[in-house]
């Protein structure tokens, strides 16, 4: 087991007291020890997922998990589906075309419909900030936010924290530089909240056109100069830049973005010598990150993030359904 487990058990809370929430909608709703609890819970699933033989645990057998994705996603939906299946749940995927469902009362209607099917846990992604919470208020089962607009993507924040904790042995005091389109990024928000809650020193780097107002109020240091923001960093987390932002509205061109904000070997050399490179994927190689950096076997943790994502999602599905499964101490 990696370091850091013992300190996070410090809350001494057990059963439902350790995680009293019905849903997982946002990192902002969690106390630091609740975040650590989920990370600790994920460790067992890392071990299981690496097993050479059958990767299966039947604890969610008989439960129905609906993955309702109102916004296109391949990786995250796959990760949630694998997580549910490895725990024995019956997973069902719903791809709701954004155009037909996004507007009007239909969102609430869809929530009511899902609820009527007696799902035991619902995983939701939606393109509008706050939409997942709106649905959660209308259903009887736990809801897991798989990303809502620019607001939050809590399991991404958790899996990134777990990656850092396993690689660095701790989170407290670690310098993390998050670089890219912070304004439009739910990944950035969940990571800022998650990592600062656990004691990391977080810096954000973004072009001035993609830096949200008053971001420093989220207990981070803001930079527009990547070279300054990366200096001495223990972790460099790159964000994906959507193509539509690079057409002149926010960024003049991909190549200018790469010049100022691309993670190159030369730039990485300004970070700590053993700096960890992270990216939530999918990557724009040659724009925000150079292939030679992304594929660095020692410093890049990008594939490990994907791996730990499954473990973290298994932990969340397990914890959120304990009450319904009448697990001792949780019923």
């Amino acid at each position, binding site marked *: 087991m990696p370091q850091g487990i013992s300190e996070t058990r410090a809350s001494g809370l057990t059963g439902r007291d350790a995680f009293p929430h019905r849903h997982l909608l946002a990192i902002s709703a969690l106390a630091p020890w609740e975040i650590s609890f989920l990370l600790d819970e994920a460790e067992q699933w890392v071990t299981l997922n690496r097993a050479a033989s059958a990767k299966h645990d039947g604890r969610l057998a008989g439960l129905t998990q609906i993955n309702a994705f109102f916004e296109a996603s391949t990786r995250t939906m796959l990760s949630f589906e694998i997580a549910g299946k490895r725990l024995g749940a019956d997973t069902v995927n719903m791809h709701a075309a954004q155009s037909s469902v*996004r507007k009007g009362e239909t969102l609430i209607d869809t929530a009511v419909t899902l609820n009527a099917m007696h799902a035991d846990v619902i995983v939701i992604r939606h393109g509008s900030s706050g939409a997942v919470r*709106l649905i959660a208020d209308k259903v009887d089962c736990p809801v897991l936010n798989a990303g809502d607009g620019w607001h939050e993507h809590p399991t991404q924040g958790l899996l990134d924290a777990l990656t850092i904790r396993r690689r660095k042995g701790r989170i407290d005091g670690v310098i993390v530089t998050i670089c890219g389109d912070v304004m439009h990024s739910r990944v950035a928000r969940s990571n800022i909240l998650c990592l600062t809650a656990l004691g990391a020193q977080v810096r954000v780097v973004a072009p001035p056109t993609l830096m*949200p*107002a008053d971001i420093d109020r989220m207990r981070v240091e803001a930079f527009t100069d990547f070279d300054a923001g990366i200096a001495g960093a223990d972790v460099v987390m790159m964000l994906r830049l959507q193509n539509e932002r690079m057409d002149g509205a926010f960024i003049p061109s991909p190549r200018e973005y790469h010049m100022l904000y691309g993670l190159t070997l030369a730039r990485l050399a300004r970070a700590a010598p053993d700096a960890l490179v992270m990216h939530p994927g999918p990557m724009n190689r040659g724009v925000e990150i150079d292939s030679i950096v992304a594929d660095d076997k020692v410093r890049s943790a990008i594939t490990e993030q994907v791996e730990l994502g499954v473990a973290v999602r298994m932990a969340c599905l397990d914890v959120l359904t304990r009450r319904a499964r009448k697990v001792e101490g949780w019923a």
Partner: protein
Amino acid sequence: MSIRIAITNGLIVDPTAIAPIAGTVLIEGDSISSIGDSPAPSDADIVDAKGMIVAPGIVDLGVFRTDKPAFQFGGITRAGLMPDQSPPLDDPGLVQRAARAGKPDLWVHPIAAATRDLAGKEMAELAMMRAAGAKAVATGRQWIADSGVMARVLAYAAALDMTVIAHAEDGGLVGRAVATAGETATRLGLHAAPAVAEAMAVARDIALARQAGAALHFRIVSTAAAFALIRAAKAEGLRITCGTSPAYFQLSDIAASDFRTFARLSPPLRCEADRQATIAAIADGTVDVLTSSHDPRGPEDKRLPFADAAPGMAGAETLLALALGLVRDEHLTINALMALLSANPARLLGIDAGRIAAGAPADLILIDPDAPWKVDSAKMAAEAGNTPFDGLPVQGRVRRVMKGGRFL
């Protein structure tokens, strides 16, 4: 001989006076015949207003819906109806119909759309709409982006002696934003525009109004920077006025935390410093009008993700009680407040209302100024309960409403 009503023992608040006076208001027919301390005539119906304020009925400049029950609860006897209807009030026939909607209990004064379909492109038939009863011209919920169009609207309306009511948000800066840039919008991940969008719009429109010699009213102003520009324009002697609504002196953008769509307004709620600046602008006379901006919206418009929800609040019922809070906090006198709620908007619309004097129309409200009550979105008189003040304890309630010499 017409019926005579004497309202006795009340505290009479005439916006044109400095302070309230105790006495009797005598009403004959549809107008006030005298005020003073002479005893009520023996043949008059006596209404004892002991402990009450007798004030002119509220003239609410810039509502989006004709909502009689809510207006009666709030003491609103005349409403300036925004052209943002469906279809928009850009045609004399539509104006005429809107003007008839409330009579006799409520007088609706339609405000003509400045441009056809409120699209900000071609001027609407302003003179014909004036002949049909339109009392002012408005750009609607949005800014007219094309400065040439706005310049022509101002010049044309000035010649017709109609006030132009403008929406003060620069469209380019706002885009599809639904919140003011700042900590709250950043934490919630909402599309936000900088607060300076308001001052940008105000600065341009003041410059154009100066050139046109037009009377220009900003329906809602909510930021310190915009108030500063308006203050300076007034000092210069331009015919520039502005209004605001209780949401902007009572709430800041924090009210939208948890994605509360009842706090999704247009313009969006601002930071705490701008809220304070709004109170200061009311206190120093920069603000001329307080409006409810009444816009009841049901769940089909509000039970949506924040960015998809329609902006607006049902404000008619809470306008007076929240405004009385300003008097209680000694930001202004009760007489000055009633000027903001009746005399000033009446002047901008060019209608005879908002005064208590012999010969004035008998549009009066009796206010119990200290009566406590609690705002409850589930029990509103309005068409919908979309109030950001749900659960707030307030003081001050309208007990009687008289329109045209008749108690409703």
